[in-house]
């Protein structure tokens, strides 16, 4: 039984060995690569994404995109929250103190003739 199976396997090998080889036509390769180009172009990043990717590479080379994106989002959120929650009185106070600083920063008026 085992011998019979071995003979059948050997016969199948020999028979299949009679089939001619199959060459890959260059036109087929070209067609397949054209498919690749079409799909790659569809998935290529847009202008905004390309800019973002360049910024990411400058700032944080090799990091996954979500890391700089989350840092950017977090800082944006902190900025917006600070802007919204800051009391108006503080703004007013800062304005008056700025005026004082501005007055203090003015050059002193020196009467050259009187001093001499």
């Amino acid at each position, binding site marked *: 039984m085992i011998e019979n*199976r071995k*003979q059948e396997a050997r*016969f199948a090998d020999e028979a*299949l060995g009679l089939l001619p*080889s199959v060459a890959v036509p260059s036109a087929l390769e070209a067609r397949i690569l054209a498919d690749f180009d079409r799909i790659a172009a569809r*998935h290529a990043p847009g202008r905004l994404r390309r800019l973002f990717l360049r910024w990411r590479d400058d700032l944080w080379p090799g990091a996954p995109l979500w890391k700089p994106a989350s840092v950017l989002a977090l800082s944006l959120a902190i900025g917006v929250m600070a802007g919204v929650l800051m009391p108006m009185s503080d703004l007013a106070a800062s304005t008056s103190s700025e005026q004082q600083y501005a007055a203090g920063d003015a050059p002193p008026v020196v009467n050259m003739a009187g001093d001499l």
Partner: protein
Amino acid sequence: MKFDPDTELVARVGKGDRVAAQALMARHLPGMLRLARRMLASQAEAEDCVQDAFLKVWTHARRWKPGQAKFETWLYRVTLNQCYDRLRKKPALGLEAAAEVADLAPAADVVLEKVGLAEEVQNALGTLPERQRAAILLCHYQEHGNIEAAEILGVSVEALESLLARARRTLRMKLSHLRSR
């Protein structure tokens, strides 16, 4: 986890790397075309089938997760499924186109005899049920081991061995007259 030599190439293909796509194609296209050609016995159908399989690769490469399955196993399974689809759509095609034989160069009488024999083998192969044909081609032609061939076919190794045994027996019966030549 098994080492998969294609993992890096597939990742690069997913990022749109054309050189990686060419390398992946050079590695697998000949084997895939040979399998499809023997399954379908029509060059044009086999080429379409392989092109569709690669289209799936290009589309899915971005989402490919290494470690789930060996890429080559998945690729051959996709190719076989494409072949099955075509065989079901045009069941007679396998035998009709069996006469298509690739280019041969030597002396005319030798060529004719070879072509005749090849045609007979291809015809006998065409009469095998799809799964038996796939099993024998994967093991004899593609030089896949039994475990890998079973994975591609989605069957157990025992089931594959049974498919192989039946396929070889049928081939031997159909081609028994060749043994006297």
